[in-house]
């Protein structure tokens, strides 16, 4: 029943929009996994050597921004499919 409701609203909205939304969702999954791995390895590194916490924190933020940048490129592509 849930699937029927979702399919009905998807057909009304158009398959292109469904594709764009799915693409954005998959891109965000990738970004989430990537940033999660960065965070976990940063936590382990800080636990091993707490005095390097400042350096590690800076590098973690930088690499998280890079991974997020790639995910946002995918989001931009999804938006372009919606509007072009």
């Amino acid at each position, binding site marked *: 029943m*849930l699937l029927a*409701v*979702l399919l*009905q*609203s998807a057909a*009304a909205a158009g398959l292109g929009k469904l594709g764009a939304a799915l693409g954005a969702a998959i891109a965000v999954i990738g970004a989430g996994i990537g940033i999660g791995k960065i965070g976990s390895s940063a936590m382990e590194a800080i636990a091993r050597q707490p005095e390097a916490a400042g350096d590690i924190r*800076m590098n973690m*933020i*930088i690499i998280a*921004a*890079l991974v*997020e*940048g*790639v995910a*946002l*490129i995918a*989001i*931009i592509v999804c938006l372009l499919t919606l509007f072009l």
Partner: protein
Amino acid sequence: MLLVAFLQEANAREESDTDNKEQQVDVNEIVFGHIGDSYEWHITDIGDTPIAIPLPVIVKSSTGWHTFLSSRFEEGDGEYEGLYIAKDGEYKGKIVEKDAGGNEVKPLDISITKNVAGLFINSAILVILVLSCARWYKKHPVEKEAPKGMVGMMEACIFAINDDVIKGCVGKDYKRYAPYLLTAFFFILINNLMGLIPFFPGGANITGNIAITFVLAVCTFLVVNIWGNKEYWKEILWPDVPWWLKAPFPMMPIIEVFGIFTKPFALMIRLFANMMAGHAAILSLISIIFITANMGPLINGSMGFVAVAFGIFMTALELLVAFIQAYVFTMLSAVFIGLSRTEEVREEKEMK
């Protein structure tokens, strides 16, 4: 379950009231109206009348230069001196004129639009902030006194960026590039922060406009490539890789040349997408309140609470993202500049 019920109700409602579309809130128009550019600075609506600051329109059309305030477009049913704002089509929302064949043609348009006015305001804020801090250093002997207050805060910020980011990433001759990198950092930071403030003079979505981030990326591109030393160009055009990757068909050089363009391109897209997505998310969350306005007080109240809570969270997140994006742009530009000033790696010395 609640979400399914909500979806079904929203779907049914969409099919049933296609005749009273004026009551339906056009979220698209709200979100993209706030994110996009316009010829007037809309401040608020009192009742039904909009309060907006009309901005000057400077256009060179086929009949010469026209300079007037954009409020003229409301006076004479949308047309003034042969120019009007296109309602739809390829030039929707921009000033067009009709040429001899009856087609809509876009004239040379250098108007002061909302983004341009926002840029002027933010640049004035930046210049006043930095120069007034610099004046403190001229008036007080630096060896004896330490600055307090705003000058002290600016000194801490500038030193943090200078020492950690610029000195660390650029390398030896960081002093040549420090002015550009510090200017880029504070420009992006102030524009991001002013974009988050919802009322005048903030609220113009400047760094979420791809033209502006394009110019910033072009600046980094020029600084990296024009002042790149010979070693940098040698590593691109004839890199130190096995001969079969570069001799008959220059695979690595082509990839490296491609890389010259993709790195500033990624800088541009990263800043643009982060800022635009943040603004769009906050605007959409606030629009939930207006969408659920007709659906009864229970749904409206609960969704209103949800929207306010999420809106506060998203705004706090956007504050963090504003700072992080300025920091990452500056740091990556510093890294690219540092890479373009590499020294020759001497292989013999490494094999000690």
